[in-house]
């Protein structure tokens, strides 16, 4: 029969996609009873927590100084705060959907704010390094079906993204005999327990080891003093494996700018010899989407200032943590992020001194301390949306539960609309 609809086969009764980390597992099944989650199938520990935090009893939808108010009043107070601010900041964003991120950029633009999705853990450094030399990467399916050698370079997906190894068939139980997993890290990790080989490397030698790998891959003689400090045999073996395979991959965690440069350069060198790609692991469910949305709307993936009416990007100067640590921002909109728990101490202290508007489905420390707090309907549970998995693949977030509340994006749009009303 001819049809104009793609139903997709075998849709489970209540399907969900987990955005608890950058894996975007879209095979989650949920059982719902009396409007609440009863059971989850296929989730990991991080996923269980992600769903639990978003179904826990929520505070009032809108509060000002901890007092419950109606939505319009909260939007008005928010508009007033942003209207008075000299340099407002919009941050968080890595745990909300792309649609809300679009609304966040629009709000930041309207009030001349700085917007920076980079989280607390140097998450933006790999992006900045890739602006200097580029990036060679692949989606999960390619890593699963083609990668013969995979190196977790200072990455511990078994802890940070628990379903990644099984989904890539790289866990011990699922890994074919001809595939190799090597872990390079400071100490044995959960991922190392799954690996064929563990290479111990002190963190301060990261750059040196990556640079030595470049030399080994390119058959360039190594400085003997440097070589003596490194686990040379293991690195030589690893370089040999990567040279000899037809498809290989490096999984890497957040790192500093210089180390990220070294890693991407190594991958670029290797790509001349074999098909070698790198995948930066992302702890947040839509950190990749935040960079993507910001890039298509402004040209830059992070640390964008609208203070002059057009986008300008300066990683460092306009990064959320940097602005807060230097006390340069005088109001903040924080979307889906518990900044007071995750930012470094000085940034936290300064954040407590300025009026904040928190938009988050969860009850967090940051929301409790906010001048204005909106408790929203969570994307992926009570609101549909889109997220970009850490490999860039866009996914639908479904809404297995109903809600009367506004989502993050609707709150941000309402604040922007209120500001526009005041301007006219």
């Amino acid at each position, binding site marked *: 029969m001819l049809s104009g609809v793609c139903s997709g086969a075998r849709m489970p009764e209540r399907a969900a996609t987990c955005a608890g980390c950058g894996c975007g597992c879209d095979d989650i099944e949920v059982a719902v009873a009396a409007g609440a989650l009863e059971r989850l199938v296929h989730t990991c520990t991080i996923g269980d927590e992600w769903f639990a935090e978003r179904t826990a009893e929520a505070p009032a939808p809108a509060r000002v100084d901890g007092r419950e108010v109606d939505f319009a009043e909260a939007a008005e107070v928010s508009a007033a705060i942003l209207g008075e601010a000299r340099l407002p900041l919009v941050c968080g964003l890595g745990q909300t959907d792309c649609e809300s991120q679009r609304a966040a950029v629009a709000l930041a633009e309207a009030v001349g704010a700085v917007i920076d999705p980079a989280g607390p853990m140097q998450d933006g450094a790999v992006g900045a390094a890739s602006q200097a030399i580029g990036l060679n990467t692949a989606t999960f399916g*390619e890593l699963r079906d083609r990668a013969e050698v995979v190196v977790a370079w200072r990455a511990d997906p078994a802890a940070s993204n628990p379903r990644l190894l099984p989904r890539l068939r790289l866990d011990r139980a699922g890994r074919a005999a001809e595939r190799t997993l090597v872990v390079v890290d400071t100490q044995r990790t959960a991922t190392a327990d799954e690996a064929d080989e563990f290479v111990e490397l002190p963190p301060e030698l990261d750059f040196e080891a990556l640079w030595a790998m470049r030399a080994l891959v390119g058959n360039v003689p190594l400085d003997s003093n440097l070589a003596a400090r490194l686990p040379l045999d293991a690195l030589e073996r690893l370089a040999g494996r990567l040279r000899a395979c037809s498809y290989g991959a490096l999984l890497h965690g957040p790192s500093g700018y210089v180390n990220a440069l070294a890693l991407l350069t190594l991958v670029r060198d290797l790509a001349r010899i074999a098909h070698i790609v790198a995948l930066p692991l992302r702890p947040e469910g839509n950190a990749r989407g935040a960079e993507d949305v910001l890039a298509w709307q402004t040209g830059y993936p992070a640390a964008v200032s609208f203070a002059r009416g057009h986008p300008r990007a300066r990683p460092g100067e306009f990064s959320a943590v940097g602005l807060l640590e230097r006390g340069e921002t005088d109001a903040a909109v924080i979307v889906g992020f518990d900044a007071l728990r995750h930012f470094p101490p000085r940034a936290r202290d300064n954040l407590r001194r300025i009026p904040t508007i928190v938009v988050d489905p969860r009850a967090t420390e940051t929301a409790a301390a906010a001048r204005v707090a909106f408790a929203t309907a969570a994307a992926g549970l009570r609101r549909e949306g889109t997220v970009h998995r850490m490999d860039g693949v866009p996914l639908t977030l479904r809404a297995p539960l109903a809600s009367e509340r506004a989502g993050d994006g609707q709150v941000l749009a309402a604040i922007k609309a209120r500001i526009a009303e005041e301007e006219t």
Partner: protein
Amino acid sequence: MLRIAQGRVYDPANGIDGEVRDVCLDGGTVVEELPSHAPRIDARGMVVMPGGVDIHSHIAGPAVNAARKLTPEEHRTDVLDRTEITRSGTGGTVPSTFATGYRYALLGYTTVVDAATPPLAARHTLAELRDTPIVDKAFLVLMGNNLSLFDLIREAGPDATGPVTEAVAWWLEATGGYGVKLVNPGGVEMWKHGNRNVTSLDDEVEGLGVTPRRVLEAIAGSVDELGLPHPVHVHCNNLGVAGNWRTTLDTLDTLQGRRAHLAHLQYHAYGGTPGKRPRSRAPELAEHLDAHPEHSADVGQVMFGPAMTMTADAPVSALLREITGAKWVNADLEAETGCGIVPFAYRERNYVHALQWAIGLELFLLSRDPWRVVLSTDHPNGGSFLSYPRLIRLLMDREFRNEQIGRVNQKAIGRTVLRDDLEREYTLGEITIITRAGPARLLGLADKGHLGVGADADVTVYREHGDREEMFATPRYVIKGGRVIVEDGELREAPAGDLLRVAADHDESIERTLQPLFEEHYSVQMANYPVREPWLLEPARRIPARRDGSGR
């Protein structure tokens, strides 16, 4: 209601070539007549054309966005401020989404086709297109290196296309796409097998039991069987390789008797020996196209200055990386395609660049049927869409062209027919064909590219100017959907623009065939693959396919 009064009207689809007359617009379409009190634009002494239609550009999706991220240095010096009606943005070779929409509109373009979206990333492309204002837009879906389609093609054998046809229709529906694109069929898959490629149409794609030729035949056959409004859109194998014109001819021969559109023909028109200096084979290809009315091409003109090479043909990018030593992005997209990006600059004194520039001009100047050889720079690969006015001047103004020819590498020119001082100058009517009427017809967009009654009220009005670059760079008025959106280089309003997508039904049983292939090849659930988000798909205008062949 709007009357564009007494302009010199170019509407070649309706046989109008510079007649002074009125064009009446009402309710978003062209109408026969309006009451005399209707608002009017005095277009006396001006040139009136349908809004521009770009058949091949790269404006949205993961590859375009990766290029944006890669080039902050280009954005710093080219910024757009927020205004009451517009969002802010940045430019460069790959502008931000808002800037892309505004700049196309300011150039008099009202419809743009993004030529390469990986189906798995359709949501991303759609979201960007929603943020690309004013212009109507559509995208082509990459299908030339799709492992599930390879499986179906192999199993169908040489003659049958049944399941392939249904799968092609399914993929168009699942993505919200408009047409089918093949990029280096088989070659991008081979790139993932240890950085290799295919070099002829009969190379087997390792272990998969298909060849580029088989993929071309099966997909082109499916597109014809479905009666899609736009024929299969092919980026041939061996892009950029000296001697590749033979592959291009072989591709056209393989597709003989079937409709096909070749993308950026200039990049596929090289004589010589692989690895050596290319020569021009533009005259041979222009002649071949002239003789085959079922085939068409866009030129993919190279313009001197900065560009951004951006292609699903990832092995080509690896070669450009070696040539430039510059930044390089490669992104393998599971079971479907690849992506390569290298910032680039075309230089007048460089033999190869000058030859590429000259070959593009040869294709324009030697082709006898402007309806089938239309304008593109493969934005941003050959240069930005902002360079179209300059390209138009090169085609319309022999003196200017000769002056430019004199500036570039003469060895290259000596190997092209440009050395013979070609007399041809495009007329305004011909420019109208290669920039709007022709692309609209090739795309099967019946309401675009002309000003007959019932056509979309997308109109561009230019002030006559001897300097054609000046004239086409700054339209006096741009009208979209009957509303004046540009006046003298200033945006007056910025409506959203429509998504254009095809409506092609598929046999619903194809989902049972595809399900096991999805489980084998993808890391997402098939149930989650088709785009359903109403905010991405709606509103849209559906252009129907004609399976029974009645529309063709």
